[in-house]
């Protein structure tokens, strides 16, 4: 009789212990977000309207039920767009864009992004703000040339020419305004100020120019 009691108690204890262990696993080992190990594109530079493939890899993806959500700053994803590998169609305008994937497990999610450049086939926009056409500039003095240059892919460099001689080069920056201070050493008379802007990625080039008058001076210090 006592022996039966002991057996029953042992079985009940084992059942309770199993249940307790199962509860403690949920409490102390919560679900981890999916671990994204890679996000790759088959091309990182495309023309407007081109299609590329984006693929994400997740650790132990086979053992889990995962959902894939894709977003981009422009362009669109071809259906089906809820897979680990999708097709993205670039927008019709150039510029830098970002593709982001969000992988969601049962409760938690993880994201990763990558950049793609859409080549703009439009020429850079370049305009000489100053000097204006017909400006009189004093020989041997310093002339300031202000230029506005922009392109969807950014500006690689801006180059300043007086007549046909290269005077200065500026690397492309974040802003659109480029300022050059250069000495005027050309002979007196009419002269051409030309500015050339080169786009990043496509290296397409466009120029703007104005005609100025260089006023001749014989330099000399006072009292000499």
């Amino acid at each position, binding site marked *: 009789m006592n022996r039966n009691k002991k057996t029953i108690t042992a079985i009940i204890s084992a059942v309770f212990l199993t249940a307790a262990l199962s509860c403690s696993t949920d409490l102390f080992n919560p679900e981890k977000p999916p671990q994204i190990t890679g996000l790759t594109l088959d091309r990182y530079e495309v023309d407007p309207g081109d299609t590329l493939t984006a693929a994400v890899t997740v650790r132990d993806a086979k053992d889990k039920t995962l959902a894939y959500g894709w977003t981009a700053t422009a362009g669109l994803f071809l259906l089906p767009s809820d897979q680990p590998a999708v097709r993205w169609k670039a927008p019709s305008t150039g510029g830098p864009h970002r593709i982001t994937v969000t992988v969601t497990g049962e409760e938690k999610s993880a994201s990763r992004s990558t950049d793609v450049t859409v080549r703009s086939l439009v020429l850079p926009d370049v305009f000489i703000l100053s000097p204006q056409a017909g400006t009189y500039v004093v020989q041997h*003095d310093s002339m300031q040339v202000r230029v506005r240059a922009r392109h969807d892919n950014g500006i690689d460099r801006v180059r300043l020419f007086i007549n046909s001689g290269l005077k200065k080069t500026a690397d492309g920056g974040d802003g659109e305004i480029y300022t050059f201070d250069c000495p005027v050493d050309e002979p*007196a008379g009419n002269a051409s100020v030309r500015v050339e802007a080169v786009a990043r990625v496509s290296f397409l080039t466009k120029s703007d120019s104005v005609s100025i008058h260089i006023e001749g*001076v*014989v*330099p*000399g210090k006072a009292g000499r």
Partner: protein
Amino acid sequence: MDWPSICRKRLRAGCGLAALLLLGAACELPRDNPLDPRNPDSRRPKRILIEAFVNMHTGEPFDQYAIEALDSLESVYGDRIAVIEYHRNAGSFITPLHRSENDILYGRYLEAAGSDNRGVPDVFVDGPEGRSQGASSATSVFIRVQRMLLPELTEPGLFSIEAVLRRSGSEIRPTATIARLGSSDASGIRVRAVLLSGAEAAPAGRVASGFSESAVIGTLGAGETRTVALPAMACDPASVRACVILVFNDADQRVMQSEKFQIQ
């Protein structure tokens, strides 16, 4: 007509005249003459001073362009402008018309303009603010100077300058009477005189050949008149042609009025 009636008639006329004079003295005359300094709306046409620092011995045509442009400006604007040529050495180019006072004035103008770019030709309109340096043709100088001149010509002249030039041998001693026109006071005012001569290299008779030290006027109230005896200036009686007297602001060297007086 008998004598007594003639006398009576003259007496009546005399009394009438005296009454008219008394009436005139009693009533304040309206000050509506634009040349009357006591009139708050008084003004005179402003005479613009064009000062050109040049050197005709550089071997370059630039200064000749400037001189030709000044000739054209004089023929177009006549008495509305007064032109002075200050010939100065530039680098290694020496001119016999150089005067140390020319360089002192040039340095003062450049300092006021905040520039260190010395060179000829260099033309100033009413002081250092209106500057046109260099030349590529007579037309370019004419256009550039005219651009500065036109707005100045529309400005009212708020000073009048009268002068008496006393000549004694090879000296000229100007006495200038300056009046402040309009309704506002002016301060920091100075006056100076420049003698102009002709020269073989500069036949227009605009070459600065004599200078007076500037005299301080200081503050001149609206409607106030001040007479200043300027120091004597040495001159060559054979070549001296005119005297320019100019009123300028001591702080920024801006010329506020100028007048040109011919010397016979």
